[in-house]
């Protein structure tokens, strides 16, 4: 008996056992499920970050339900999903990935959303071996933008480098042009972790280019005590503070800033310091606080009207707290679902209308073109920025909107999408990707195909 056969028999036996179990509790597997598209979700509904995760799945699942219920699936191929809890822990995340990667009932996995920076890093190589693209919106390895070295990692929309650059460009917008940046002091207060340090390189480069002073102030995890850091701010008197927090660090920073008298409307929060959950606990002093995000808050986008009409009002929503409808995190889930669905649609146009596997979805992602026109058709104008990906560019957008907290909700205060200086930063990113390729012995892929 060949090795392959043995493997098949064992996996069949395991499958049969699972089937027996599911049959025993009365769930039946319908015959036409091979015509559905499996889409596993790695969630974190428990653990330290659950409060930020729960609205994300709601946005995602609501959009999937909308696609299934109203549009009858992606060109008729309905989405099916199940959840695997990661607790935001890397080991659990890897376990979930391995559990779902073979697909379900004959339907392959098109895209895996790791939902956790360390998880996405641990899966970088595994995903290449398994040919399953990882889509990490606004987190993940920045140098994975170079798809020639990272064929299956997609840090789409807004990398941390773009985040830093857009924040600087917003400041330029405020002070009246990039030439006015010269001589300004911009302090970055960051979560002292690999994530927090990720913007040091681009900010140093931008400081050199535009002539502003780049001050870096670390806050140790979890950041529930920041008197020392803000005392330093008071002493250094920066013009702007760029706040790259995570979890409890953000509200504590806002409160401590108020205590030392730093104007809150000169603090720009990063992507993970810019949700309702981050600013509400700070209370009244949070009024005026700014944040840059690829997921503008708001429930007035066209897609939200549809979601409300067909999903929320019919009681089909996954949302526990209806107040979160249109929140930053909910909208991030919708955004992510739109990108995934459109990538599958693009792949279907090329490979045929049927469930798509990882390799085909990778093609779909690299040929994804979310134009203004397409976004308008979806109803996501203003919610999602135009996005065009390629093998050389797995990010695509690179712009964010700046929101301001009015004490109740977020309002967009930037002049539309604030673009980052991608032309300036991309060479540095490619350099880093090339260094990674050298270290790992990877031959970069030809980008022309």
């Amino acid at each position: 008996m060949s090795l392959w056969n043995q493997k098949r028999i064992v996996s069949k036996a395991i499958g049969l056992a699972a089937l027996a179990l599911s049959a025993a509790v009365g769930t039946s597997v319908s015959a036409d499920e091979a015509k559905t598209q499996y889409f596993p979700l790695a969630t974190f509904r428990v653990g330290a970050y659950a409060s930020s995760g729960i609205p994300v799945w709601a946005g995602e699942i609501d959009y999937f339900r909308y696609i299934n219920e109203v549009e009858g699936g992606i060109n008729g191929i309905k989405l099916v999903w199940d959840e695997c809890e990661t607790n935001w822990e890397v080991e659990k995340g890897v376990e979930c990935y391995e559990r779902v990667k073979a697909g379900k009932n004959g339907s392959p996995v098109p895209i895996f959303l790791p939902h956790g920076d360390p998880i996405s890093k641990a899966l970088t190589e595994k995903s290449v071996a398994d040919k399953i693209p990882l889509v990490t919106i606004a987190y993940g390895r920045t140098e994975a933008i170079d798809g020639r070295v990272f064929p299956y990692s997609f840090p789409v929309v807004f990398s941390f480098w773009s985040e830093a650059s857009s924040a600087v460009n917003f400041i330029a917008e405020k002070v009246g042009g990039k030439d006015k940046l010269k001589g300004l002091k911009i302090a970055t207060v960051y979560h002292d972790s690999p994530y927090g340090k990720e913007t040091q390189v681009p900010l140093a480069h931008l400081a050199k280019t535009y002539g502003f002073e780049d001050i870096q102030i670390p806050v140790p995890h979890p950041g529930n005590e920041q008197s020392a850091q803000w005392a330093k701010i008071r002493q250094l008197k920066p013009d702007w503070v760029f706040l790259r927090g995570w979890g409890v660090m953000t509200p504590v920073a806002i409160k401590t800033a108020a205590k030392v008298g730093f104007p809150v409307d000169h603090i720009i929060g990063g992507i993970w310091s810019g949700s309702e959950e981050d600013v509400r606990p700070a209370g009244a002093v949070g009024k005026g606080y700014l944040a840059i995000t690829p997921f503008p808050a708001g429930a007035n986008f066209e897609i939200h009207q549809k979601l409300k009409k067909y999903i929320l009002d019919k009681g089909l929503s996954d949302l526990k707290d209806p107040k979160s409808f249109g929140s930053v995190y909910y909208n991030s889930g919708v955004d992510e679902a739109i990108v995934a669905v459109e990538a599958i649609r693009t792949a279907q146009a090329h490979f045929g209308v049927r469930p798509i596997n990882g390799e085909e979805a990778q093609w779909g992602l690299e040929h994804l073109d979310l134009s203004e026109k397409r976004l308008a058709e979806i109803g996501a104008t203003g919610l999602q920025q135009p996005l065009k990906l390629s093998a050389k560019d797995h990010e695509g957008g690179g712009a964010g909107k700046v929101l301001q907290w009015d004490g109740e909700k977020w309002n967009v205060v930037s002049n539309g999408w604030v673009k980052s200086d991608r032309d300036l930063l991309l060479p540095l990113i490619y350099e880093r990707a090339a260094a990674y390729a050298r270290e790992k012995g990877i031959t970069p892929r030809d980008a022309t195909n």
Partner: protein
Amino acid sequence: MSAIGTETIEGFGPSGVTAQSTRDRLRAGSVGVLLAALASIPLVANDYWLNAVLIPFLIMSLTALGLNLLMGYAGQASLGSGGFMSVGAYATYNLLLRLPELPLPVSLLLGGIISGLVGVVAGLPSLRIKGFYLVASTLATQFLLEWLFNQYGWFSNYSTSSSISAPRLAFLGHDLSSPAGRYLLTLATVVVVTAVAARLVRSQTGRTWMAIRDMDTAASVIGIPVSAGKLKAFFVSSLVIGIAGALWAFAYLGTVDARSFNLDRSFQIMFAIIIGGMGSIRGNFLGAAFMIFLPIQLDHLGSGVFGGAVDPGQLENFQKALFGALIVWFLIKEPRGLAALLSRAWTQLVSRINR
């Protein structure tokens, strides 16, 4: 521990020698069968079992073994295990990166030795303090090491995110980066280290450790070198944990940063040996199995039985509570751990058959 005591006595009597040798042969035979079975697992298991279950289980067993040498045998409590894992991982990474001509096992061993030396430094306070005070000082080591690898980019070769990922894993021209290759690398390492450790605890060194554990004042009175014994325990323990850390980084996860080896990891390892059994080699494997398999099984069971019907968040919380309850229940059943529970069950079974 009692099992070791009886063995010593048996070893002296003339009849004991033959009984011992038959038992040794039997044991060697069963170990051989077990090893053959373990080595052939990649032929039948799929990626899920290798990547998500067996590799972490083996590495967790190895870390538990490392801590058990220190805590279970030498009686020195430590919460620095996560830190020593990170030393092993970062040291091995730098050796692989900067000295690529070294073969993989040599890099692993050297990484372990570096971790062992760090362990000796971290163990210096044990010469003056013990118990909870020592726990506090090892806790400081844990935080210091985590900070160090996050702070200084040199350790991670100035990677943007301070994370490290293994350069090509290969040995004697064989590529070990497939799941089966990584599993076999882990298995071979665990087998070798466990065999050495099992010999070690029965040697002069092991007896010194146990004497220190049981009463260090008495040990020093009868002329046992207590300080040297403690530092040796820290060295060997950190060496084993360091090797495990390198495997965790490169054979299991692939890419890690200092956060992968935080205080939670240290606690997890300590729980594994408490549940498995302190001062027992077998207990490490049982404890690691408990920590790795059980939550996964609960999760499979939960999603298989209730999936879709119950709110996933509630289900997850329930599983956590159940896991905690099981820990408490097992420890009430047998405070000395699963190893003691198993050997008690075995004795009962044998006596019932004999009757």
